């Protein structure tokens, strides 16, 4: 740790670094690259959905003999799109990158509690992500049983599924190390005066997210171990008695596919909150800063988020109403699912009310944060019918479900992440992003996101099933809505083009001159007020600040400025 000021080579400084800021940036770049890759996969799949069976231009010859996307490859790409977007893209960006870079700065710590573990966590994530994609090159292609990997299908799937499981084990290990690190850092390394109720909401969200990762991932690891045993050693944990599969077996039987679903969703429901909580945190910071007034109901937000965290552990089986697990259990999970919507509404309401009476600055981060609110609202509200068993019978496994969770994650969380990137870009680099390009990025993304996902509700309500590689053209009931596929596909490609604004903006801004301002947004939290932009090397602060105030003291009456830093006495 005490490398002092002697010269470091490029490798020790940027590659094998134990500095939380460098590791955060490593996470950020890697996860953004994976997000782009996951998007490319879905762009190819969407061509097949819009124009089933027609050869794909340019890359078609790589995919199949006749240039069209073969159904097996479609399945692989679908499973890997989900896996990559969630486990290699959004979570590492929201938790790994933002959490690593900002949590120590916001609580006044010189680094994470365990810097070496932190580096290990990144490298294990990197290795796990590489293993995941290696799956594409094994016989039979990558995992093709959906990102949920339901058995018995996944038990008898090609080798790619085994690779997927090893990749998951690595990613779970990485997130375990990362979450322990964040938790210990927040509990132990808060600076003097940084009491729990003075923590920025962003830190709270990372803290609760870390708890969810710590406790929800291990059951999936257990499930992964059991599935590896099934696939490699020939146990039958997930294989029911009497199952006959062509070319497989014999299976001892006696197991249950439901067991996997329970263990999987015990992770994967809290995972939803792992995706959304950091987004709440980022949006809260951006909104407070750009309305120039305190957040409405700081304590309500904190308690709502803690409650959300607890409840997220007892709602998992609402993904399983149609599995025959029994109506009594269904009734329990319907009740808890309705209850968990309450804290989400509290959070969204607090953020909406925070806008009331503010003198809002409509800069790029704020636009993305404002876009997040209705988009997440749509995502959340469309979830309610899915949480009720009676409505779920009709909607289950249709495009409605896809529309629902994409509204939560894509225009929801990813918008919040963009808000965060634009908001903290000056912190990371000491430079400003281009506002014009930023706004173009926002408005075009906003339009095309809705162009992609809104028609999914229409298709889903009409009963169109998900996971069909022809988009459902052979189904009579899909006839009325299948033409929407082309519109959605074109929207998706334009959404991809819109991201060029972002990429170009990043390149131009990185090449621009430093502005020399350390606090360009006039923010109150100590990551802005007590360090330079970009922060000093290892150690973060010239002198570690002491905290006297709450995190959002904007426009305090009778003060000189409209922002009063947390470290300012008074």
């Amino acid at each position: 740790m005490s490398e002092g000021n002697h010269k470091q080579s490029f490798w020790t400084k940027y590659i094998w670094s134990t500095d939380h800021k460098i590791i955060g940036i490593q996470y950020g770049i890697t996860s953004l690259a994976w997000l782009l890759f996951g998007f490319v996969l879905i762009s190819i799949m969407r061509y097949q959905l819009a124009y089933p069976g027609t050869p794909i231009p340019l890359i078609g010859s790589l995919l199949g003999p006749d240039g069209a996307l073969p159904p097996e490859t479609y399945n692989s790409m679908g499973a890997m799109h989900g896996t990559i977007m969630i486990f290699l893209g959004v979570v590492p960006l929201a938790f790994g990158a933002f959490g690593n870079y900002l949590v120590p700065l916001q609580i006044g710590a010189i680094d994470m509690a365990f810097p070496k573990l932190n580096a290990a966590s990144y490298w294990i994530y990197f290795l796990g992500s590489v293993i995941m994609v290696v799956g594409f090159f094994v016989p039979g292609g990558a995992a093709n049983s959906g990102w949920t990997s339901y058995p018995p299908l996944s038990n008898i799937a090609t080798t790619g599924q085994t690779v997927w499981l090893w990749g998951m084990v690595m990613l779970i290990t990485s997130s375990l190390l990362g979450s322990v690190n964040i938790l210990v850092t927040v509990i132990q390394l808060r600076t003097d005066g940084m009491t729990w109720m003075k923590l920025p909401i962003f830190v709270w969200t990372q803290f609760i997210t870390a708890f969810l990762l710590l406790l929800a991932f291990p059951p999936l690891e257990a499930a992964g171990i059991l599935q590896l045993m099934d696939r490699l050693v020939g146990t039958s944990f997930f294989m029911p008695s009497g199952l006959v599969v062509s070319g497989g077996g014999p299976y001892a039987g006696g197991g249950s596919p439901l067991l996997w679903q329970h263990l999987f969703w015990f992770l994967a429901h809290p995972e939803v909150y792992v995706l959304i909580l950091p987004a709440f945190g980022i949006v809260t910071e951006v909104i407070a800063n750009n309305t120039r007034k305190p957040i409405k109901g700081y304590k309500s937000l904190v308690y709502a988020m803690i409650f959300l965290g607890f409840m997220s552990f007892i709602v998992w089986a609402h993904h399983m109403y149609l599995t025959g697990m029994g109506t009594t259990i269904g009734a329990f999970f319907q009740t808890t699912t309705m209850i968990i919507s309450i804290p989400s509404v509290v959070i969204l309401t607090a953020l909406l009310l925070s806008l009331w009476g503010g003198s809002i600055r409509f800069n790029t981060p704020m636009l993305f944060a404002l876009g997040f609110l209705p988009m997440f609202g749509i995502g959340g509200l469309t979830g309610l019918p899915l949480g009720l068993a009676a409505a779920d019978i009709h909607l289950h496994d249709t495009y409605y479900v896809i529309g629902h969770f994409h509204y939560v994650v894509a225009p929801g969380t990813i918008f919040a992440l963009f808000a965060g990137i634009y908001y903290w870009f000056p912190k990371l680099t000491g430079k400003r992003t281009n506002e014009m390009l930023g706004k173009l990025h926002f408005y075009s993304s906003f339009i095309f996101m809705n162009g992609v996902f809104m028609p999914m509700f229409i298709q889903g309500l009409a009963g169109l099933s998900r996971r069909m590689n022809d988009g459902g053209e052979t189904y009579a009931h899909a006839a009325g809505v299948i033409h929407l596929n082309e519109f959605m596909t074109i929207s998706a490609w334009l959404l991809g083009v819109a991201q060029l604004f972002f990429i170009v903006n990043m390149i131009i801004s990185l090449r621009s001159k430093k502005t020399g301002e350390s606090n360009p947004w006039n923010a109150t939290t100590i990551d802005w007020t007590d360090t330079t932009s970009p922060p000093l090397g290892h150690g973060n602060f010239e002198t570690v600040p002491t905290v006297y105030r709450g995190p959002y003291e904007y426009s305090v009456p009778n003060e000189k400025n409209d922002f009063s830093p947390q470290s300012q006495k008074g």
Partner: protein
Amino acid sequence: MDIPFNVKERPDTGLYNGKLGIWLFLASEVMLFGGLFSAYIFLRTGVDNWPAGTEYLDVRLATLNTLFLISSSVTMVMSWASLKLNDFKKFKFYSGTTLLFAFGFLVIKYFEYSAKFSHVPPYLPSTNNFLGIYFTMTGLHVLHVIGGIVVIGYYFGPGSKMWKADPERFTNRIEIVGLYWHFVDLVWIFLFPVLYLL
């Protein structure tokens, strides 16, 4: 530049970083084994006939192994207490004894496993779900025992140099290893009745 509370306790939490870290890690481990125990219950209640543990397993060997692990937990505490009392020689003695007990556990486990494999007909994980979950859970536990041996062995051998340089830090390390080792012991305390006796 040193991370605060790496060795000394933070006054308001009463913990040093590593101790909190290991408790959180163990919480996650509880969820891991909890998931497997839940799977065991789920599988067992889902079928009409579940074999009694004694049909396949040797309770006498497992009892001996239970004694080994419990004793190793005691010697583990003693090794930490010796450091607290500034007695490095006794630490070496107790730490070494812990290692011996742990190796004893592995040796017996080896005989148990090979007896299953060499049985006619062989008892394999694929034979039925009882044996499947038996091998999975005890196998994962054995991995944890091996992990423990590696770390205890490191601080018994080359890692013990830290005692001279930074005794407090070394004592903390042993406390952390001890917490982990007690957890490994505790998992076995649950595995033994669930798999062998019920």
